[in-house]
């Protein structure tokens, strides 16, 4: 018998603060950068209303206070209002992360009555044509704009999220103007990170350095303009990992503050982790507390003992925890490797190659595989 592994209780006393409830993988859109797993079509056995309520109750009892409802498209679940009401009752701050498809005035009112705190709507582009090409739906854009206005009118704080990539980043000026026009309180300009479908479509999505720099300049100009007008609209620009010198502190550390529950009840340290060659525990089999504190999966990358060189001896290891495990695995095949985004990683050349590829590719980039059930079947291992 081997010595007992140190658990999270020994490594740090932290309880989870964030629960991301991925209610379903179903979605009417087909974004080619979707962070859902490639084989999402294999996971069809969604948690029931009662199972979600019990999951939320346990998470809240452990100390989680922020709750995100996402997916897929969470509005596909017709028990969403019930779940929101339960969550609010439990004391969660409730965020709905949605494409706005499936939303209408009646539902906005019902969600409001249920106690929903915040609705975040994703936009694909500044104009309908690019949006249609990106999301694989011709009518979605107009619908989103109408719903964004309705959400604002209902008195919600309005946060818009735009995923940036090589096909829409040059239109950033128009995108920000649109968000301003919609009355947004905050805009997340999130450069596409390369997981899930995005990694598959990387050649067609990664912007060139020149595109990225122009986008940063546009954002800075807008910040000045907004400030001059006294307009309070925060612009949060998230640089793509591939152009950073250091990796991000992914999820604030593995199993440190964040947990995702996938549609079928699998519990993950982040929404991409399902891609890792690991088995994740399920709320159908174990309590959340047992999973969070004692499972092999959640303890695997806690602390520092797992770290390879150069992270192990690096002064920055408490800032970035060695970067993202999913990225390390997707690029190197080893989930315990230093994130190649780091300039100190022995495999950093993988990132440099991808950047070079982005320089060479034309504006069109490669062909994009749309995220839908048919394409997903290809990745199902059954």
């Amino acid at each position, binding site marked *: 018998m081997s010595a007992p592994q140190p658990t999270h209780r020994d490594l740090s006393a932290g*309880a989870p603060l964030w629960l991301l409830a991925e209610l379903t993988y179903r979605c009417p859109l087909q974004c080619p950068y979707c962070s859902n797993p490639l084989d999402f079509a294999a996971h069809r056995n969604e948690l029931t209303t009662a199972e979600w309520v019990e999951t939320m109750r346990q998470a809240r009892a452990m*100390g989680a*206070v922020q709750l995100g409802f996402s997916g897929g498209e969470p509005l596909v679940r017709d028990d969403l209002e019930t779940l929101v009401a339960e969550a609010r009752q439990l004391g969660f*701050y409730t965020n709905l992360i949605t494409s706005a498809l499936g939303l209408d005035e009646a539902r906005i009112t019902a969600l409001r009555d249920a106690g929903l705190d*915040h609705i975040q709507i994703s936009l694909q582009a500044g104009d309908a044509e690019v949006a249609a090409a990106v999301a694989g739906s011709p009518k979605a854009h107009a619908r989103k704009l109408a719903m964004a206005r309705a959400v604002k009118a209902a008195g*919600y*704080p309005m946060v818009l999220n735009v995923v940036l990539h090589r096909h829409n980043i040059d239109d950033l000026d128009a995108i920000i103007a649109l968000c301003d026009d919609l009355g947004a309180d905050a805009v997340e300009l999130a450069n596409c990170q390369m997981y899930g479908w995005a990694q598959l479509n990387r050649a067609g999505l990664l912007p060139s350095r020149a595109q990225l720099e122009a986008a940063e300049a546009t954002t800075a100009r807008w910040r000045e303009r907004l400030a001059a007008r006294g307009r309070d609209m925060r612009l949060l620009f998230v640089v793509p990992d591939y152009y950073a010198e250091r990796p991000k502190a992914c999820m604030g550390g593995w199993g440190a503050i964040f947990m995702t529950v996938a549609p079928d009840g699998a519990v993950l340290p982040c929404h991409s982790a399902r891609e890792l060659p690991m088995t994740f525990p399920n709320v159908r089999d174990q309590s959340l507390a047992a999973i969070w504190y004692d499972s092999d999966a959640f303890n695997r990358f806690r602390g520092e003992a797992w770290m390879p060189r150069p992270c192990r001896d690096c002064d920055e290891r408490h800032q970035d925890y060695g970067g993202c495990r999913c990225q390390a695995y997707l690029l190197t095949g080893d989930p315990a490797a230093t994130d190649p985004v780091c300039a100190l990683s022995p495999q950093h050349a993988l990132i440099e190659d991808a950047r070079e590829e982005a320089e060479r590719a034309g504006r069109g980039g490669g062909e994009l595989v749309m995220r839908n059930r048919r394409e997903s079947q290809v990745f199902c291992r059954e």
Partner: protein
Amino acid sequence: MNDASVYTLRPGWRLQWEQAQERHVLLYPEGMVQLNASAGAVLELLDGERDVGAVIAALRERFPEGEGLEDDVREFLAEALAQGWIREREAP
């Protein structure tokens, strides 16, 4: 800022006592500010009715010995305003 100003939390933001953390937290879209005891005590009093003077009076009653309390409260509210946590209530 004068003592007749009335401040409220930014719309959609919520102040809440978290037993697990043994402190007040300020919750907002996808985020949280963890407050120390005095910040929690001040924000708790912003009910949309009390003006700054009344907030100070209420705290004075609770902490009769508190030295420099008035200035601390005004300073904290100015900071909270700059951070965007609170807003001046629009005239009714």
